[in-house]
Each structure stands twice: as structure tokens, then as C-alpha cells.
């Protein structure tokens, strides 16, 4: 057939070797977007779904109605959490390249998304993250050693050897078990929130997926159930532009913002500068208050950039321009908060360097301890008998037999 195909195909702005072009990203001036009341009806605030809430301007000043007016001490805590997340990521990335862990996923450039949002929530709120939200673990104070032991699948692994690296959970920290399947956590978070509402509690659930994962049916289920039951949930779409090599256009971002789907379901949708710590905090705070007061769920699109590869198994130079990140118009979250704090007189480069060293030492020391519990090749190993536990609450006969067979195989 010689006829020319008439099918439209989304194209990223720049392939390898091409000049990066982020003109497609709709950016509002900092402080330009109004801040409605938390009880506003979704249909009345639809504009927030296509604008971009920003607080930090290009001069590193906090401006506009969304300014959260946080204490500098709290901002410093946020900076620390973000920096620790980044340092932890870097160290673990190098560890993977050195063959000491099998796999790793960094959140480079997206630290504000997890840290700022977590800090705007309460400890009793249940978090349903994706695999790129390690900032939540850090912000909730989960010990680095525990995270590292999970990466090592060693004798102190919280998952007892059953999960791929980075698929953490924390019952005490109210962070749900991370699944290897995309978007499944989204509607689960809504169910959790529904239960909180049924019980008459004011806890929230918050969940994160990437924009690529919003293509999954579970995204629809989450928004539908959140809307139908007005569940006290915050649904976050982290639009970091890339899902492995799948440009956000293939998730529908070419035609409409992801936040705009919220109003489509009758839910408030807000689009925010994901690299702006203060804006992210402010929007999350707004959504949390909205949910806690029974005014309903919010869909937040956090616009950011996946500065790292998808994972240690990915090489982005094969599908996007190498210097993409440098041209990203919304900058780097750590740099921007640092400069803002310095401008407020509450921080300095020297303190930043000192903090960096301190956190590097902390990460190093944690790793030294973590490996004593076993590594891929050395040290104590998990008992393979564990493979048969927790399939059910109590081990049924057929698994007992299989465990016995496995033991025979090994002997």
C-alpha cells in the first residue's frame, strides 16, 4: 500500500544530537497563579490545572499568594532531606556500578517532589509511593541502614529477600510497600482514604505515579473512585517528562496537562513547579487541608525533569539529548532552595559544603554497617527457607512439602 499514513505520532522536542527544546512546557510567572480557598469547587478552579503554581522566582525570592511562609529552620530541614536523598542516590548508583548491589533507581532532580510533599503531610497520613520517591523514606526518617539492607537483600532486609532493590516499605513510617507494577498504588491509596473516611478519621492517603504510568487503567480507577466517594486523598502525577524512553506525549501530555484530568473527573487539579520546594509544599498543604476538611481529593501534577536515567539498566543518551537537563527551564530543586535560603541569610555555601560532607559521611558509615549484615557475595546470607514464609499467614501443607524438597536439593 503506497498511501501515506495519516496517523499522528507524538514527537519529543529533541532527540540525541538535537538541540534541547522545552518551549512546550507551559510555565506561569512565579506568584501569578491565584490561590483559591481549599473548599473551592473543582469546576471553579479549573485554570489551576493548566497554569503552573510557582513561588520561587528566577531571582530566588519567594513571591505570590502560594508563599507558604515556612520557618527557615524548616526550610533547612527540607534542604537537608533533599541533599541526603541526592547523596544517598549518588552513592548507591556508584555502588551498583561497582557490582555491590544489583539494581538502583535515582531520583535526581526530583527531590523536592518527595521531600516537600512529605513535610506538608502528617505522620499519620499513609503514603503510597512509586519507586522514585525515596525522598519520602528519608523525610520520614527511615534509617539509611535499613534502606541499604533492602538494596542488599541481606539478613536485615525489611523484605526478607523477596523484592527487587528500591521496593521499600515501612509500617512504622506509614509508607506502603512499593510494587513493581505501575500505577497499582493509585487506586489502593483511594481505598485507604475511603476507609479512613468510613472510620471517621482525618488521616489522608497520598500517592505518586509518573506521567507515563497515568496511561494505565489504575489511574482512571483512582480518579473515578476518588471523585465518586470524595475520598480524602492526594493523587500526584510526577511529570518528569520521560518514562524510560517514552516521552510524555505518549501519555497524553501533548494535548492537555495531566492535572487537567482532575476537573474531567470533577476533582480539583493543580499543576505546580515540581522543582520549587516552596510551591510544592504549598500546594500539598492546600490539598491536605482540602481533604482533611472533607472538601475532597486533589490531583496534583508536579512538573519536573528526570535528570537521571530511568534506572541503572537505562542509558538516556540513546533517546534524548545529552545536555537536556542543563536546558531544563525549572532548574534544580536543591540549588534553588539553597540560593533562596542564602538570600534570606539563613544559609551559606560553606554550610552547604559542610552539610554535604556530613551527609556523605553518614551515608558512608551507614553503608559500612549495612554490609556487615551481608552482601551479594560475602557475609551472612538469608535463609532460603524464608522463601516459603508469608505466602499465606500460616504455611500450608503443600508449601511445607516444597520447602522440604528444596532443603533436600540443597543438601
Amino acid at each position, binding site marked *: 500500500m503506497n498511501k501515506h499514513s495519516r496517523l499522528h505520532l507524538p514527537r519529543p522536542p529533541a532527540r540525541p544530537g538535537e538541540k534541547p527544546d522545552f518551549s512546550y512546557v507551559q510555565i506561569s510567572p512565579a506568584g501569578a497563579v491565584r490561590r483559591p480557598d481549599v473548599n473551592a469547587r473543582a469546576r471553579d478552579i479549573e485554570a489551576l490545572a493548566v497554569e503552573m503554581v510557582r513561588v520561587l522566582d528566577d531571582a530566588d525570592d519567594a513571591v505570590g499568594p502560594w508563599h507558604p511562609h515556612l520557618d527557615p529552620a524548616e526550610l533547612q530541614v527540607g534542604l537537608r532531606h533533599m541533599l541526603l536523598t541526592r547523596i544517598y542516590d549518588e552513592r548507591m548508583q556508584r555502588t551498583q556500578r561497582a557490582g555491590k548491589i544489583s539494581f538502583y533507581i535515582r531520583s535526581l532532580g526530583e527531590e523536592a517532589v518527595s521531600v516537600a510533599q512529605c513535610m506538608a503531610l502528617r505522620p499519620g497520613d499513609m503514603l503510597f509511593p512509586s519507586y522514585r520517591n525515596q525522598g519520602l523514606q528519608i523525610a520520614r526518617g527511615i534509617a539509611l541502614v535499613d534502606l541499604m539492607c533492602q538494596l542488599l537483600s541481606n539478613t536485615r532486609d525489611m523484605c526478607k529477600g523477596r523484592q527487587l532493590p528500591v521496593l521499600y516499605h515501612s509500617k512504622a513510617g506509614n509508607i506502603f510497600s512499593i510494587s513493581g507494577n505501575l500505577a497499582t498504588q493509585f487506586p489502593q491509596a483511594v481505598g*485507604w482514604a475511603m476507609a479512613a473516611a468510613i472510620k471517621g478519621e482525618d488521616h489522608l492517603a497520598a500517592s505518586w505515579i509518573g506521567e507515563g504510568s497515568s496511561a494505565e487503567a489504575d489511574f482512571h480507577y483512582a480518579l473515578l473512585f476518588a471523585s465518586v466517594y470524595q475520598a480524602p486523598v492526594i493523587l500526584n502525577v510526577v511529570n518528569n517528562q520521560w518514562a524510560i524512553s517514552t516521552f510524555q506525549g505518549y501519555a497524553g501530555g501533548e494535548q492537555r496537562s495531566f492535572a487537567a484530568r482532575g476537573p474531567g473527573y470533577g476533582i480539583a487539579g493543580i499543576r505546580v513547579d515540581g522543582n520549587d520546594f516552596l510551591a510544592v509544599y504549598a500546594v500539598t498543604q492546600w490539598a491536605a487541608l482540602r481533604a482533611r476538611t472533607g472538601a475532597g481529593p486533589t490531583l496534583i501534577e508536579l512538573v519536573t525533569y528526570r535528570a537521571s536515567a530511568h534506572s541503572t539498566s537505562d542509558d538516556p543518551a540513546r533517546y534524548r539529548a545529552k545536555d537536556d537537563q542543563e536546558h531544563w527551564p525549572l532548574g534544580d530543586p536543591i540549588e534553588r532552595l539553597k540560593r533562596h535560603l542564602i538570600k534570606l541569610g539563613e544559609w551559606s555555601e560553606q554550610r552547604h559544603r559542610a552539610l554535604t560532607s556530613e551527609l556523605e559521611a553518614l551515608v558512608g558509615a551507614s553503608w559500612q554497617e549495612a554490609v556487615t549484615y551481608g552482601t551479594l557475595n560475602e557475609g551472612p546470607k538469608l535463609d532460603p527457607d524464608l522463601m516459603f514464609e508469608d505466602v499465606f499467614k500460616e504455611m500450608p501443607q503443600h508449601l511445607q512439602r516444597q520447602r522440604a524438597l528444596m532443603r533436600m536439593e540443597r543438601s
Partner: protein
Amino acid sequence: MASMNMIQALNSAMDIMLGRDPSVVLMGEDIGYFGGVFRTTEGLQRKYGEHRVLDTPIAEGGIIAAAIGMGVNGLRPVAEIQFADYIYPGFDQIVSELARLRYRSAGEFFAPVTIRTPCGGGIRGGQTHSQSPEGIFTHVSGLKVVMPSNPRDAKGLLITSIEDDDPVVFFEPKRLYNGPFDGDPTKPAVPWSAHPKGQVEEGYYTVPLGSADVVRSGSQVTIITYGTMVFVALAAAAALKVDAEIVDLRSLVPLDVDTICSSVKKTGRCVVAHEATRFSGFGAEIVSVVQEECFWDLEAPIQRVTGWDTPYPHAFEWEYFPGQSRVASAVKAVMEPT
């Protein structure tokens, strides 16, 4: 004791559990105000309120996912999938999430969800109202799979399933909702009120999972079956005047291997019967287990009685449905002198 059909027995189970355990919630399409398309949840929303018996959107994936989230947050959800034929949109949440949650979180998180769903044919329901997909779920580690054949078992098993902290997929053979069905569509329907297992205790009681029921003791041949086929097997054996031992599995996972093997070792001849399609059906697992455990006692090859490997047809309901004559052929074949 009261006379109950299977619908009433299931209703009673949910009623009792809603009353006993404030964390139990029901959810599903049309189950709340309307009481369910088969009336299994009739009256329960009126009795326990809209916040315990929830109507949901037509979104099986959402229903299961929301049930998981609720289960993680301390509730004990009983989610209805209106027909087992529609369970597939929720399959990912069941297999990838519900079945594995306890395992991947080393027991820190689990969701005590019971998924109830009517299954099976014999009702002229065609492909989208007649399927028996239980075999697919038995293959997923971390799921329990149950299928009662009568009101008395249905109530006890549902209570046990709801109380179980592991996820349970609870299949309800819809052809048996109103009465036992022996595979002969020309006979007038027999109600449960005329059957001993239609006499059901009104209060709380449990039937354990992993326990098969020998519904008929016999010495010549063992018929291992579940669901509607229990009654087809009983009728076929009676017509043949064969002294058949008929084992109603009731629980597919966990499987009562001991009862199966005691029976086959006694009779030496085995027929496995289920409505579901043949290839890779659950019957293949039973046959494998019998072959492994009872080989030296087998007088003859094990026979399977199943649906054909076609989508469930509408016009050919009775040619498709494994009725008494298909069971009889298998029994005769297995009883040839060897």
C-alpha cells in the same frame, strides 16, 4: 436451623459477619441499595448502612484496588465481582498486588480481602455469564480459592473466608443458588428446601478451608469434583448403580490432598469432574496429584470430565455442559476390568 437456599445462606454469612466484626464492609456493583443482581446482599445495606455496604462504580479493577487499600487500613472488605466473567479487569490487582502483598512486605502489610463472584453455566448465559475461571486463580501463589456446592457449606465457608487474613477468591456456582442441579435441564427444578444441605444453622459457624467433604461413601470408584458437578456426579453414579465415592473438594486452595488420596487408594479408580474447560483446568492439577501420590493403587487411567475447550456457547448449552452422560462415560471407562 432454617431452610435456606444458597443465596440466603450467603446473605446470612455476610449478615452475621457484618454484625460480629465492625471492620467488615461489603462492596460491589448493585449490591447496596439493590441488594445484588442475585439478591445475595439483600437487606444488608438497610440493616448496616451505606457506609458498611457500598455500591461501587462499574470498575472491577477499582473495586479490587480500593478493597486492598481498605484492607491495609484496618477494614475487612468483601468485594463482589458481579460475574466471574468480569473479573479480568481486576486481575492485575488480584495477582500482582493482593496475592503478593504479605509476601513482599514480609508480613508488614496484608489485605484480608474476600472476593465473591458467581460462576458457572447451566443458565443459558453465554460466554459472559457462564465461565468457570477458578483454575486460573489456583495457579497464583498467595491466593486461596473456594467453591461451595450447597447452602450449608456456602455459609460456613464464606464466614471462614471473611475471617481469613489471607485473600480468598470465593466462587459461587450460580446454577446452585436456588437448588441442586443434576445436569438434566428437562427435569423440574428441585429447591434447596427439599435437600438436607438446605437446612442451615442460623447462627455463626465455620467450615474450614482445605477440607474436602465425602458427600457419598463408596468403594468402586472415586469421583473428585466441586461446584455444580457434585450433583451431576451423584446423579450419574446413581443411574449407573455404581458404588461411587464422591468427594466435594469445596476448597481448591488449600487442597485436601489427604482425603483425595485416601479415597483413591481405597477404590483404585478415579474420575475428576469440573465444569471449567479441559486444557490446563484445575482437574489437571488433581490428576497430577493423584498420579504422584496414588500411582501404585491405580487400577486404570484417571478420567477427566470437563467442559470443552471452547468459549462457552449460548445455543449449545447442553452439549457444552458436562452432564450426566459425560460423567457416565468416564465412570464406565474407568471401571472397565483391568
